[in-house]
């Protein structure tokens, strides 16, 4: 059983039968008896003072139950959503202002109180008998605005003295920190033979989950308990935030998440609609349901990326990297929800390369756009883009071979663990190893022939490489409660939450591995704070790592207790009892007892010692603050039509080290999804704001997403060098696919266009941008 379905088995996904036949249970599938509906009135202005809100006409419509504003919220004594922009778990570079001033944390109410700070920010919450009635009433809510000067671009926000989001801040800069050693970097740059430089804006991308955000809440006045149904990255985090915001106790808030139709980080925060649904349900005594529509999703989901970088790499005459210097400017949007993309990207920007010195200025500014937050691989795709572009630029400008330049600077296996120049300690790995596998998959020998074949069709072909590292950490605490039920089931309660990653399968495999039962016997329960009362949710590649450690620990406790009981029942000394394939047995005595039978005895027999009696169950808590560092190497080939600037990805191969793959098939699946997301980011996706903060890409008519027909078949290779910071060697495998893709595809495009001597093309590499770059070089 264990060999076929334990750790390392490509077990078919248990959730798929249910999901494929439409038996999933997503946000909109839930309908609560007597439910009302809610619609948000959103600000049409990027920046405006709210002079007055007149709700009378809206409230007078038949079927309208309430029209709520921030003034009502404050009058009820309720609080803003807690903002915690600093990473919850070490080790990250510090988020400290260089001048020692404290980090500015403004209040963020679920409805704009006196000022709206981005187009789409909520200003009123209309509750009624149907969505259409609410929408009609919402049109009658009269909001008087006084428009203020707005700014959407981070670089413009840095300099602006007139478009200021926060009066108390005197500028838009929320963080201005330093990392690494500026003195060592300056010294290295002085003796460098070569210096290459890159200025780039990695555009704002949105997760665009297939299922938009949803919230539904009901209130039980007898128990004084509110229940929020909302899919996301966690149930415990919104519960904690709602307790704070609505002045409720632990027992008074329950959060339930059922199937989640995609997340990518987009749903990880406590969105305004969560508190508003709960508050309205409590006020009205009726369940309240809200569904985000697609346009609202573009307007009000928390976005990702949006990093402006100026970076320089210093090299000696042999091509050895000496130092890396950068200014990394993160666009936080209107409210500082997260520095994580900025910090996690910056601290890994030297990537897998041995660079003795690095320094960075880490800056974060507020702008009149929705908040940004970690989006799949938070900050790392941006950082890898910078490093890998700098390497290709150095190769091109200083006459090095780009593969040799990488080989010369990759951290050798013998040097691990390795402290990178920002202070991150890489645990283990084989960086040259994955690179060489990628080079092999690249089939460089066949490239000239493929290039010639493309040429015969009038297309320029290029090949691009990119290595990456990322860190998996996240919320440090996780708990698993493993229970052996006499009827032949093992249940696991755990505080993570799948948004499509296949936990129902891979977590079963962990139980199979450690308790030797059939995966059919396992039941995974998540997504309800009444059941999984603690746990950190799913983000930062933490779920599989924490599931393995907690389930293994709980299993071990069950086996220890089971062994004592088995010894008693089989009348043998404990040391003669061993546990295999779900059985406690003594081969010598030819006697055994099944795990489930043992659970029955423990539950039913009265004559056994008290400490062995009762439910056969173990609760394991793990608190881990060490990161593991997934890494890998990707290679891609593209074809560029220089007449139109259109780019087609022709080949893509990925080598990803996940430490240990619990289910290689689902790791491959996640890699595929990650690559698709990265190709989208490289070639087409961008949230476009006008200078004054108007969203110009508010639907799929204008926000380009990659489609299956845009993508080639991917070659994926899983590398498994065990992580030394995880007891079972896992690194995390959810983000690798996307981390180097932006860099790899851009390197391939610029390689295809080598004859035009282009250093940089504005991202994303749309046909327009590519053609303009070619045209500007051709016309010189």
């Amino acid at each position, binding site marked *: 059983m264990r060999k076929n379905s334990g750790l390392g088995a490509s077990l078919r996904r248990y959730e798929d039968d249910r999901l494929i036949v439409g038996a999933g249970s997503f946000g909109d599938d839930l309908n609560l008896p007597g439910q009302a509906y809610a619609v948000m009135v959103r600000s049409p202005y990027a920046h405006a003072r709210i002079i007055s809100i007149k709700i009378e006409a809206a409230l007078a419509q038949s079927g309208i139950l309430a029209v709520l504003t921030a003034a009502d919220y404050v009058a009820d004594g309720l609080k803003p959503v807690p903002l915690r922009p600093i990473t919850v778990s070490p080790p990250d570079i510090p988020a400290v202002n260089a001048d020692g001033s404290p980090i500015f944390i403004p209040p963020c109410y679920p409805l704009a109180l006196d000022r709206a700070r981005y187009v789409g920010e909520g200003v009123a919450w209309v509750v009624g008998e149907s969505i259409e009635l609410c929408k009609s009433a919402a049109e009658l809510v009269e909001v008087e605005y006084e428009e203020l000067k707005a700014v959407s671009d981070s670089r413009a926000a840095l300099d602006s003295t007139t478009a200021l989001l926060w009066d108390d801040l005197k500028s838009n800069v929320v963080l201005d920190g330093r990392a690494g050693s500026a003195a060592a970097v300056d010294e290295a740059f002085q003796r460098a033979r070569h210096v290459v430089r890159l200025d780039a804006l990695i555009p704002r991308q949105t997760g665009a989950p297939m299922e938009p955000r949803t919230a539904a809440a009901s209130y039980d006045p007898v128990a004084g308990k509110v229940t929020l149904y909302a899919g996301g990255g966690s149930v415990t985090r919104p519960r904690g935030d709602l307790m704070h915001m609505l002045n409720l106790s632990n027992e008074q808030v329950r959060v339930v998440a059922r199937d989640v139709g995609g997340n990518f980080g987009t749903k990880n925060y406590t969105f305004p609609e969560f508190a508003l649904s709960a508050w309205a349900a409590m006020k009205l005594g009726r369940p309240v349901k809200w569904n985000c529509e697609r346009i609202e999703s573009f307007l009000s989901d928390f976005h990702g990326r949006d990093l402006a970088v100026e970076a320089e790499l210093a090299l000696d005459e042999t091509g050895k990297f000496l130092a890396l210097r950068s200014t990394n400017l993160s666009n936080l949007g209107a409210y500082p929800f997260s520095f994580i993309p900025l910090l996690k990207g910056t601290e890994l920007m030297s990537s897998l390369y041995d660079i003795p010195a690095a320094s960075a200025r880490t800056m974060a500014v507020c702008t009149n756009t929705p908040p940004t937050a970690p989006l799949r691989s938070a900050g790392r795709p941006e950082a890898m883009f910078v490093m890998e572009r700098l390497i290709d630029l150095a190769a091109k400008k200083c006459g090095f071979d780009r593969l040799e330049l990488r080989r010369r600077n990759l951290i050798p296996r013998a040097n691990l663990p390795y402290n990178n120049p920002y202070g991150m300690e890489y645990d283990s790995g084989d960086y040259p190893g994955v690179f060489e596998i990628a080079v092999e998959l690249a089939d460089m020998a066949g490239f000239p022939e493929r290039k010639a074949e493309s040429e015969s069709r009038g297309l320029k072909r290029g090949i691009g490489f990119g290595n990456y590292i990322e860190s998996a950490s996240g919320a440090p605490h996780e708990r698993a409660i493993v229970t052996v039920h006499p009827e032949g089931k093992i249940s696991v309660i755990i505080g993570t939450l799948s948004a499509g990653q296949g936990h129902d399968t891979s977590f079963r495999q962990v139980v199979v591995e450690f308790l030797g039962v059939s995966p059919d016997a396992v039941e995974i329960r998540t997504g309800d704070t009444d059941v999984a009362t603690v746990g950190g949710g799913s983000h930062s590649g933490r779920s599989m790592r924490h599931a393995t450690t907690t389930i293994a620990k709980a299993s071990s406790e069950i086996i220890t207790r089971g062994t004592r009981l088995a010894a008693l029942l089989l009348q043998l000394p404990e040391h003669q009892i061993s546990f295999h394939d779900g059985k406690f047995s003594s081969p010598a005595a030819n006697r055994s007892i099944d795990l489930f039978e043992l659970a029955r005895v423990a539950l039913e027999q009265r004559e056994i010692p008290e400490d062995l009696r009762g439910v056969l169950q173990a609760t394991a808590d793990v608190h881990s603050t060490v990161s593991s560092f997934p890494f890998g190497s990707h290679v891609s080939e593209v074809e560029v039509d220089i007449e139109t600037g259109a780019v087609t990805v022709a080949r893509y191969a990925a080598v990803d080290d996940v430490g240990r793959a619990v289910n290689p098939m689902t790791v491959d699946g996640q890699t595929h999804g990650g690559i698709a997301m990265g190709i989208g980011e490289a070639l087409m996706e961008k949230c476009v704001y006008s200078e004054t903060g108007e969203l110009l890409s508010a639907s*799929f*008519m204008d926000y380009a*997403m990659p489609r299956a027909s845009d993508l080639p078949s991917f070659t994926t290779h899983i590398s498994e060098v065990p992580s030394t910071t995880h007891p079972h060697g896992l690194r995390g495998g959810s983000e690798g696919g996307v981390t180097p893709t932006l860099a790899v595809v851009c390197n391939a495009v610029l390689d295809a266009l080598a004859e035009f001597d282009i250093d940089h093309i504005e991202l994303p590499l749309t*046909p327009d941008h590519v053609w303009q770059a070619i045209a500007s070089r051709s016309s010189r």
Partner: protein
Amino acid sequence: MYSITYHRASSVEEAASLLTSFEEGKFIAGGQTLIPTMKLRIAAPSHLVDLRHIETLKGITVEKSMVTIGAMTTHAEVAGSVELHSVCPSLCALAGGIGDPAVRYMGTIGGSVANNDPAADYPAAMMALGASIVTNRRTIVADDFFKGLFETALDDTEIIAAIRFKPPVRGAYAKFPSPASRFAMTGVFVAQADDGIVRVGVTGAGLSGVFRQTGFEQALTNDWSQAALDNVSVDESMMLSDIHANATYRVNLVKVMAKRAVAAASGMRK
């Protein structure tokens, strides 16, 4: 969507008379544009008069070197018509490239032409084929029919009955789709009539919607070749700029797509 009253007309006369009786009435054909805009509450008709069930508005006939396509003929029917393919395969190919299968099974040629979306495919073909738009009152040539962005020569209660054109000797449509919507960022239909005259219709690129590229037409009439277009300039001031493509780039696309249409119409690969 606001609430509306739906009417199913069984004849053109009934449809026209129904619409006249409502202040905020609107005809609906395949609904592939109208319904999404109603869902977004951008369009808010009080009454919809459905034209899709009027038998006289359906079907394709090819006779005496004249093609007639009923206004309520779907894109899928145009794409799959064996008769039409034998005389004008380029229009079949164009229809087969509109939207996705769901759109093609609902959307109609009359609806598309009446809507005159500046990025729609059919208007380019109407221009290049020198088509006539036959309504319940008159016949309007394509040159007079399209009046700018979403504007046509149709009166409020006028109904397109059919599209008529003489099949070209050769023709092709080359479209460069927008990466987001997959509508034409620039689409060029090139057609040569039996008298040797070439007409070129351009969609997706113009500031004022579909237009004829007369410079290309003259050059190609004189010399049917890609090279003939090399020295013909495209007026950048007429081109659209948006977040996907600026006017300079669209100038380039107009020429590149025209050349590709010429190549395709000549049986070349590119």
